[in-house]
C-alpha cells in the first residue's frame, strides 16, 4: 500500500467523506455491481446448507467461548507453536508489531545480509498497522501478491473491502494501471489477460524473494497450527517457497481446537466469496524439522498483536466485535456501504464491521462518526456467519460517543451537544417554551414561502440547521399551537356560557 494510507486519526468524518464519494458515479457503479454479484453467490451457496443456522450458532459459540478464555488459549497456542519450531512474539500495539516485523525481516537474510524485499499475502492486520509504509521507510519493499492488493499497490490506491479490496475498480481502470506500472503497452482488456499479466509479473518474485509476511485466518491453540485461506495460490507461494515466514495475527484470531475448523471453514468461504470452499486452504504447524529440502520455510515467526483488542474485550456489550472472522458479508449487504464504497470509512475496516471495529481500535478517541454510518436496518446481522449483533453494538457505541462528547471540555467543541442542552432548558419551563415557540414563528418568516395550495414551506435553513433542508423541505410552524388553540377554545366556550 502506498500513499498516506487510510488512517482513522486523520480521516474526515464519515458524513463529509461520503458526500464527496457518492459523487463518483463510476465507483458507485463498480461497488454496486460487485456487492450484488457476491450477495447473489452467497445466497445460493448458503441456501444449499440445510444446517446453516446451526453452523452460525456453533460459530458464535466457539468464538464467544474463545474470548472468555482468551489468555488460556493464547498461552496454549504459544506453547504448541514453540514446541513445533515456531517463534512467538507479542506486541502491545501497532508500533511494537511493526518494529518486531522490521527487526525479523532485517535479520532473516542468509550470511548476515539484510533483505531489501519481502513478498506479502493479503492481510487486514498488516493493513491495520500500515506495515508496508513502515517497511518501506526501513528500506524494505513489500510486494503485495494478491491480485486485488497488487492493483491497489500499483495504483497507489487504498483498499475498500475486507475480502475484495479493489472492488471499486473495473477492468478498464485495472488495465490502465497495469499498462502503466508493468510497462505493458499491448495488454489486453479481459479479466483473463489481466490475471495473466499479474501471474507473469509476480512469478519471478515468488521464485526469488526469500522472506514472506502474512496475516492469519485462524491460530489453532490445540496444535499450535496456523490456517490461511485464499484463492489464487499466491498465499501458498508465500507460505511454502521462502526461507523465512513472518505471520502477524491479532490476539482474537485464536480458536480452541482443530475440530473447530470444521465449523469455521464452512462459514467463512460461503460468507466471504460465495464459494462452497475457496480454492486453497493451508494449514501448517511450526517448521519441518528436515534440514535440507524440507517442506516450507526453515524459520517461522508469529507476532501476536493486541492493539486495543484487550480493551474491546472489557466492554461486555461490544466484546462480540472480536468474534469477527473477516468475511466481509456485512459490507456486501449494507445499503450504506453499497452507496459510499469503503474509502468513506477512513479505515481499512469499512462497512458495518468497520463502523464498530474502527472506533474501538482507536479507543473511541477517533472515528466517532462511524457508529452513525448506518441506518440500523439489520442486514449485516442477518448475514454475519458468527452472529455479531452489529446494530446493537452500533447503538451502544453511539451512546458512548454521546456520553464522551457531552462531558468535560468536549461540550465546547460540539455545537450539537450545546444545542441539545439549550433545548433541554427550553423544555424545562412552560414559560420559556411558549416564548420560544412565538420567537420561532417570527424567526422563520423571512425564510418561508407559500406553495400553490397556500401551504408555507422552508427550503433553506442557516448554519448547522441546513443539514435538514439539504435533502427535504420543512413545513412552516402552524399559526397556532395545539395549546394555544385549546386555550382559545376554552375561553370562547366560557365566554359563550357566560353570555347565555
Amino acid at each position, binding site marked *: 500500500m502506498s500513499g498516506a494510507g487510510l488512517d482513522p486519526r486523520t480521516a474526515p468524518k464519515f458524513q463529509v467523506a461520503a458526500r464527496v464519494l457518492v459523487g463518483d458515479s463510476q465507483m458507485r457503479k463498480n461497488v454496486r455491481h460487485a456487492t450484488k454479484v457476491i450477495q447473489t453467490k452467497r445466497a445460493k451457496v448458503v441456501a444449499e446448507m440445510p444446517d446453516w443456522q446451526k453452523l452460525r450458532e456453533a460459530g458464535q459459540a466457539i468464538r464467544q*467461548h474463545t474470548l472468555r478464555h482468551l489468555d488460556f488459549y493464547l498461552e496454549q497456542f504459544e506453547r504448541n507453536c514453540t514446541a513445533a519450531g515456531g517463534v512467538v512474539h507479542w506486541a502491545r500495539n501497532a508500533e511494537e508489531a511493526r518494529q518486531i516485523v522490521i527487526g525479523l525481516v532485517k535479520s532473516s537474510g542468509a550470511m548476515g545480509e539484510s533483505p531489501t524485499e519481502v513478498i506479502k499475502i493479503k492481510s487486514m492486520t498488516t493493513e491495520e498497522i500500515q506495515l508496508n509504509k513502515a517497511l518501506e521507510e526501513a528500506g524494505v519493499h513489500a510486494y503485495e501478491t494478491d491480485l486485488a492488493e497488487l492493483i491497489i499497490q500499483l495504483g497507489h490506491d487504498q483498499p475498500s473491502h475486507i475480502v475484495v479490496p479493489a472492488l471499486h475498480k473495473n477492468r478498464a481502470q485495472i488495465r490502465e494501471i497495469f499498462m502503466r506500472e508493468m510497462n505493458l503497452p499491448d495488454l489486453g482488456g479481459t479479466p483473463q489477460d489481466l490475471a495473466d499479466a499479474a501471474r507473469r509479473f509476480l512469478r519471478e518474485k515468488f521464485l526469488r524473494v526469500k522472506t514472506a509476511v502474512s496475516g492469519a485466518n485462524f491460530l489453532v491453540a490445540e496444535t499450535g497450527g496456523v490456517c490461511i485461506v485464499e484463492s*489464487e495460490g499466491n498465499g501458498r507461494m508465500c507460505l511454502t517457497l521462502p526461507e523465512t515466514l513472518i505471520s502477524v495475527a491479532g490476539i482474537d484470531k485464536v480458536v480452541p481446537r482443530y475440530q473447530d475448523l470444521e465449523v469455521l471453514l464452512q462459514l467463512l468461504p460461503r460468507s466471504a466469496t460465495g464459494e462452497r470452499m475457496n*480454492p486453497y486452504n493451508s494449514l501448517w504447524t511450526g517448521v519441518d524439522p528436515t534440514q535440507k529440502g524440507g517442506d*516450507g520455510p526453515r524459520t517461522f515467526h508469529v507476532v501476536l498483536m493486541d492493539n486495543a483488542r484487550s480493551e474491546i474485550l472489557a466492554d461486555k456489550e461490544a466484546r462480540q466485535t472480536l468474534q469477527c472472522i473477516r468475511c466481509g458479508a456485512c459490507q456486501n449487504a449494507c445499503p450504506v456501504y453499497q452507496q459510499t464504497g469503503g474509502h468513506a470509512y477512513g479505515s481499512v475496516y469499512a462497512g458495518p464491521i468497520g463502523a464498530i471495529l474502527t472506533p474501538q481500535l482507536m479507543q473511541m478517541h477517533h472515528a466517532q462518526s462511524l457508529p452513525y454510518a448506518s441506518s440500523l436496518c439489520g442486514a449485516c446481522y442477518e448475514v454475519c456467519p458468527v452472529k455479531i449483533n452489529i446494530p446493537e453494538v452500533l447503538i451502544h457505541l453511539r451512546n458512548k460517543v454521546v456520553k464522551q462528547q457531552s462531558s468535560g471540555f468536549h461540550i465546547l467543541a460540539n455545537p450539537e451537544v450545546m444545542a441539545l442542552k439549550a433545548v433541554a432548558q427550553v423544555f424545562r419551563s412552560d414559560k420559556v417554551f411558549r416564548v420560544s415557540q412565538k420567537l420561532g414563528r417570527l424567526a422563520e418568516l423571512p425564510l418561508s414561502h407559500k406553495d400553490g395550495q397556500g401551504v408555507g414551506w422552508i427550503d433553506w435553513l442557516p448554519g448547522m440547521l441546513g443539514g435538514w433542508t439539504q435533502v427535504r423541505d420543512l413545513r412552516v410552524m402552524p399559526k397556532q399551537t395545539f395549546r394555544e388553540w385549546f386555550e382559545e377554545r376554552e375561553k370562547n366556550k366560557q365566554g359563550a356560557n357566560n353570555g347565555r
Partner: protein
Amino acid sequence: MDVELIAVGAREDVLRRIRTSIGTPAANAPAIEAEWNTLPREYNRVGSLDREAVLEMLDERLRDYDASVIRIQSGAVAETIAKQLTERGKHRLVIPKGLAEALGEALPAGFEFVVDEGLSTTELDSFEGVVTASTVAIAETGTIVLQNVAGEGRRAPTLVPDYHLCIVRAGDVVENVPEAMTRLAATASLATTFVSGPSATADIEMTRIKGVHGPRFLDVILVT
C-alpha cells in the same frame, strides 16, 4: 537489531490486560475443556447420502470449479494416467516419494517421472506438471486434501508446476467438512492443503478467472 529487545514485557502485559478485561477469575484447563464440550454442535456432523451419491456429488462439484474428473475402476490407474498425460501433452513430471506404493500400481512407461528429493524452486518451475495421490476428498465442497505423507509429499511441487493430476480413491471420499476434519485429526500437525479446483480469482469485477499463481489445470482420477 535484536528483536528480543523491542517489546520487552509485552507478553505479560497483554496477558494481564486480557485477564483484567475478562473480569472473571481464570478457569483451569479441565473446566475450560468441560465448557468446550458443551458448545452447541447441532449442525450435520455426518453425511446422509449413500456411497454412489457421495461420489456423484464430488464429481459434479469438482467440475463446477473447473477441474476435470475421470472415474475408473481400480487396476486401470496407470493406463488412465498415461492417457490423461498424453491428452494434456505432458511428458516431464515431478512426483512425490512413495507415489507408486500409494497408488498400488507402477507408473506408466513413456514419461519422465522425477521424484522430488528436495528440488529447488527453480527446478520445480521447469516441470510440466505434478502427479500425486490424496488423503481425503470432500464431496459437498469439491475439495481434495493433500498432506505431507508418502504419495503426496511437500507442498511446493503441487504448487509451482502448471498442471496437477491427482488420484483419489473412493474410500477416501467423505460427504462433508466435519467428516473430513475427523479423519484428519490424527495427522493434524502435518502440513495440509485443501485444494478446491484450480487456482482462481474473482478480484476483477467478481468474474471468476481460472489460474493465477497455482496450477491452472487440475485433473482428478477417481478410483472406485
